[in-house]
């Protein structure tokens, strides 16, 4: 039995991943923003075999509640083996371009809140000297593109933060997994046309679950994104800046 904390537990990717922990009878503590949905996710996981240690409603932007919620989770679980951080929003790039306030707010939700959570979380876990932190970033972190660089920039900040955190926590015996999903068919992406590159949350969840259990550092999900992003990163800037990506 593992003791698993999930932040952003009602995101489609987190929910699908949580089901895989539930199948193993793991003990879960769930955190999400909306009460009724958090309860729906918790009930489902309980019937699927999870032991629900607790649920807590949290808007991740309430930074001063982070410490209390994390301590509550650690207490309810009896220690944290795995912490999966999966909350996020998908900003409307066009609207962000027209509003500095909105842009900052999106960076707040997708980067600042995560960085704050990770700071407190790593403190807890470093003290225990064991466990794994897994964070969902995005392939969008790999290179800024005109179509979604607000989101990409936020994810890149988290991504780089994780890189450093991994180095620091390595000595303490705590692992850090960076998860970079590509296009996933979830409520967050409901408005998009779905093509060949899209995957289902269940598929993505399997790889995330596997990567967490096997202590991977950085994973693209599905894995073919590693090669797509490699090609995109290798593109000369001169060419890239004129492209419509």
């Amino acid at each position, binding site marked *: 039995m593992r003791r698993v904390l999930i932040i952003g537990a009602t995101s489609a990717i987190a929910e699908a991943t949580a089901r895989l922990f539930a199948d193993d009878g793991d003990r879960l503590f769930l955190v999400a923003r909306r009460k*009724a*949905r958090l309860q729906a996710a918790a009930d489902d996981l309980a*019937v699927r075999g999870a032991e629900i240690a607790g649920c807590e409603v949290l808007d991740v932007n309430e930074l001063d509640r982070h410490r209390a919620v994390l301590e509550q989770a650690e207490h309810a679980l009896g220690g944290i083996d795995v912490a999966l951080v999966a909350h996020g929003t998908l900003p409307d790039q066009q609207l962000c371009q027209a509003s500095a306030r909105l842009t900052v707010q999106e960076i707040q939700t997708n980067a600042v809140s995560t960085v704050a959570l990770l700071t407190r979380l790593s403190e807890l876990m470093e003290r225990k000297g064991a466990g794994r932190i897994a964070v969902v970033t995005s392939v969008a972190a790999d290179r800024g593109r005109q179509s979604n660089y607000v989101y990409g920039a936020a994810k890149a900040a988290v991504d780089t933060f994780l890189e450093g955190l991994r180095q620091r926590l390595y000595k303490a015996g705590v692992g850090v997994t960076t998860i970079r999903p590509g296009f996933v068919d979830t409520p967050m992406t409901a408005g998009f046309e*779905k093509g060949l590159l899209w995957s289902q949350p269940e598929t993505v969840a399997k790889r995330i679950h596997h990567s967490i259990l096997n202590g991977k550092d950085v994973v693209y999900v599905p894995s073919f994104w590693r090669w797509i992003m490699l090609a995109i990163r290798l593109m000369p800037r001169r060419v890239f800046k004129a492209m419509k990506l």
Partner: protein
Amino acid sequence: MGRNSRYRSWARPPAPGPQGAVRLHWRDEQLPEGGGPFLAYGNGRSYGDSCLNSGGTLVDLRGLDRFISFDAETGVLRCEAGVLLSDILGRFVPEGWFLPVTPGTQQVTVGGAIANDVHGKNHHWAGSFGHHVRRFELLRSDGSRLLCSPRENADWFGATIGGLGLTGVILWAEIALKRIEGPAMEVESLRFSRVEEFLELSRASHNAYEYTVAWIDSLTPGPGGARGLFFRGNHAAGHHAAAPSRRKPGLPVTPPVSLLPRAAVGLFNTAVYRWPRRRHAVAHYEPFFYPLDAVPNWNRLFGRKGFYQYQCVIPQDQAGAAIGEIIARVARAQEGSFLSVLKVFGNRKPPGWLSFSRPGTTLAFDFPDRGRSTLALLDTLDEITDEAGGAVYPAKDARMKARIFERGYPALHRFERYRDPAFMSDFWRRVTSGDTQQGAANA
């Protein structure tokens, strides 16, 4: 609103008209303002147009796939409407519980199973799916939510079971699972060569066998009736049966033409009939209940033109004659059905106003779409069914005329008052057009 090219029915090519789609993910969501007419969409395992809504908006329910509660004492499961029967079996068979009723595929949602009030091989013991539904919540387009059970909103309960998705969206339901000892089935197979013989086997098996069903060879009925195989089975006690492997090949794309030429179907049918098989066997429940699930996308074998399923039920006193005649007509037309299925239903009163399964014998075929000749044959079968006082199954239908539907489902006028005014399906448009020529014109 998302794209919709993935929303089809099981037997037909893409919907004739463009349809929008929205997905529900949480029980606290509402239907979008405007954008109707709406229609709930489960997993698209209906064969015809009862899950299609040209010009309207499908409400995709696969995102509502959560369990809500399970009582390990009584077996009562509450779950969201988009949960697949395969999810339920996957979770609860290892704990010793089984679905009270299951259709021939586990790839259907709980909501879809209620809306078509599906039946299984145990109808003679257990009735249809709706008989095991305790309660559900219905979301209407005006935003209201109705808790329905035989005691609360009982008329909505009766209208929605078998209600073809037209009374609103079922958000969750409570069903009673039943105890089993393990995943194994004890199965027996017997040959027969006449309809009367089949009916006799059904009668003789009624009390001792929970599950009964027969396959018939629709190309070569033989003198005086129908040759086929009668299967009967029970859940086995204490036996262990190996689960079939999970990875299965399927057709990744739809070929332009049917891969099932008449000759091949003929050979297949003969092989099924002649193949030496053990009379008694212990089998895992999956191949017993879901032989077709072993080949994902088998529907694509029929090519881009698709195919028609035809399923009717004939009252028992007429069954021998009418079934015999239908089989003879089908054989003569040589339209070729891959596997034809025959089963005697039990006598329980149907739980839904528009439920298909009712006392009598049911017969199902599939026919590659060869255009006019296929439609003409199906019209003939409608007439035989109607004359015998029977009914055609909407879940399988894409072409019956309004008059045939009306005669098989006299409660439809009462039902119409309970239909959500903002809900509609291609099926309903067709069978309530009042214009019996409509079907022919569309064909």
